[in-house]
């Protein structure tokens, strides 16, 4: 039974581990305090109401005691984000009088739907097989997406600048960029898959 030297130095995963071992709520408190601002802003995004967001914040905190014990968590921040988002969505669904807002949310969701997927490509720099295909992938994009992706990633322009250059709406610019990036990824992954298939077929033929 030793006293913990400095709880602030413990990582999120270490705190979860300590909580699972000791069932001491203090660890959950310490963990949650690191993300209260984040959770509050996320709740604000969905509820658009300060009081509701505060209530949701406490409800999520109380849920954590059980949820942390039930789940294997590798990245607490992203896990907490998902928990928060789901909590807010469930609440919004239960609020029958909030249909309009829900409609607005669903509309917003379309704008940001791409961001739900992982738009990164692992070991991009080490994967030489994509090198020859990136131009091909860029050319596969539609005109708006190609312009916005090239301006954003290759010429490193911000949304405002792209909007000024292209005269597209700011939200559209964001959407073109997100969808363009997603399409690029899919194209490259598709190419990778086909390449593997070819290798397998060739292996059989040989």
């Amino acid at each position, binding site marked *: *039974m*030793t*006293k*913990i030297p400095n*709880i602030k130095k413990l990582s999120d995963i270490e705190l979860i581990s*300590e909580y699972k*071992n*000791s*069932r*001491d*709520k*203090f*660890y*959950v*408190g310490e963990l949650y*305090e690191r993300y*209260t*601002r*984040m959770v*509050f*802003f*996320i709740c*604000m*995004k969905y509820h*658009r109401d*300060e009081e509701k967001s*505060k209530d949701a*914040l*406490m409800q999520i905190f*109380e849920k954590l005691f059980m949820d942390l014990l039930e789940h294997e968590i590798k990245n607490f921040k992203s896990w907490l*984000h998902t928990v928060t*988002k789901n909590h807010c969505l469930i609440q919004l669904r239960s609020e029958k009088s909030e249909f309009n807002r829900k409609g607005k949310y669903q509309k917003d969701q379309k704008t*940001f739907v791409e*961001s*739900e997927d992982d*738009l*990164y*490509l692992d070991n*991009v*720099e080490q994967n030489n097989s*994509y*090198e020859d295909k*990136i*131009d091909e992938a*860029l050319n596969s994009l539609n005109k708006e997406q190609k312009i916005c*992706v090239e301006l*954003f*990633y*290759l010429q*490193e*322009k*911000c*949304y*405002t*600048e792209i909007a000024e250059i292209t005269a597209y709406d700011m939200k559209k610019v*964001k959407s073109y*960029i997100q969808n363009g*990036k997603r399409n*690029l*990824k899919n194209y490259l992954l598709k190419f990778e898959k086909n390449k593997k298939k070819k290798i397998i077929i060739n292996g059989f033929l040989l």
Partner: protein
Amino acid sequence: MTDKLHKIFSKTECPSEEILQKYLKDELSMEEKHLLEKHLIDCEICSDVLEGMSLVGDSKIVAPIIVDINSEIKSHIQKPQTKSKVISLNSWIPYVAAAAVILFIVSIFYLRQDLRDNKVIVAEKTKEAIEKETDAKQPLNNVKNELVETPEGTYQELDIVLESELQEEIDLDIIADDEIENAIENYEIPPEAIAKSASGSTAVGKAAVNYSFTTSDAAYQPQKETTDIKRIQAEKISDKYKDAENIELTEVQVASTSSKKSIFPKKKYAKKRKAASHKIGKSSRRSEAPVSENSKGNIKKPEISYEEVEVAQDETIIIADSAQKYYSQNTTYNLAFTNYNSNNYRVAVGYFNLVLSDSINHYNSLYYGGISYYKLNKNDSALIYLNKVLEVEKGAFHEEAMWHKALILKRTNKIPETKLILQSIINENGKYKIQAEEMLKKLN
């Protein structure tokens, strides 16, 4: 080509909240904006946070909200005192044991504190008794001086009384200065005092016992009511003996009865007795013959004895202070009874004796004091007390006293006496008849 791939798919770290705030306030350069936007496209969390931040507006509002929430969170949680891997039942045992020990110590402390308070009351009482005793000694010595020519037996008896008084004064000094708890436990009326009060003058004993019995029954009545009962009784006694002053009595009788009753003197008692004896003395200085008889214990009772007259006088005088006296007496009696009920007989007997020091014929105290002595295996003392109880005809504890007397006699192997008293119990056909019969069978 690699540069293009890197630019499009490279990962970036989440920015600080400050950067996000600056972005919302449009305080970032185009390059910084681009880097942040590049991250926001890939990071849903930062994107959501940024959107939430944009809805809050003024970031200064957020700080107090977060402080409130964090304090609320802290109220929900407990600080970890220790780091324990497994919470087992065994780990709680030392804490529970420690808590129990602390609780025990605290309760003992408070109990002792309570006892200490009681001790203080008793100490005050005993000191008061000493003072009163000292005051009472003076008239007693005067009486002794007047007894130079009295028969030897009476004089010796008086000497014993004086010695016991002095001894008691010494004892009380020790009590007041030293341990009061022990004083309570050891506060004993010398058995001879009880015995003398019983044998010295039967009529006085009976009258006093009857009086004590009735008043003790009324002890739980309100104070005023108690006083009224006593007044009525005293008036009855006074009426009964109103012609008693014409009876011929000697000074020796007066001295004898006064001295016997002053074993536990009270200032007021001493004064009252003195006054009473003075009054009676005026009209009764004729014959010495009854004196010698009386001192030997062969009492030839007059129709209305002097002692009864004295009791009547005393009772009348006592009425004025009776409420106050019985209030304190009943407090002591209640303490005695509380200890008796808790089987704490040593302390109980001390308190019963304190009651008896105020009123030597207090019926209930005599009975329960006797039983306490019986429980403490002090057979001789128990017998004296119970004999005193048995002097009262049809007393409330007559049967119990008889039965316990039989038990004590049997315990002390006084078989013939035991058989006699058992036979009496059987003849009386009381509630101990069956037990008495069984015991008698065994003894036979």
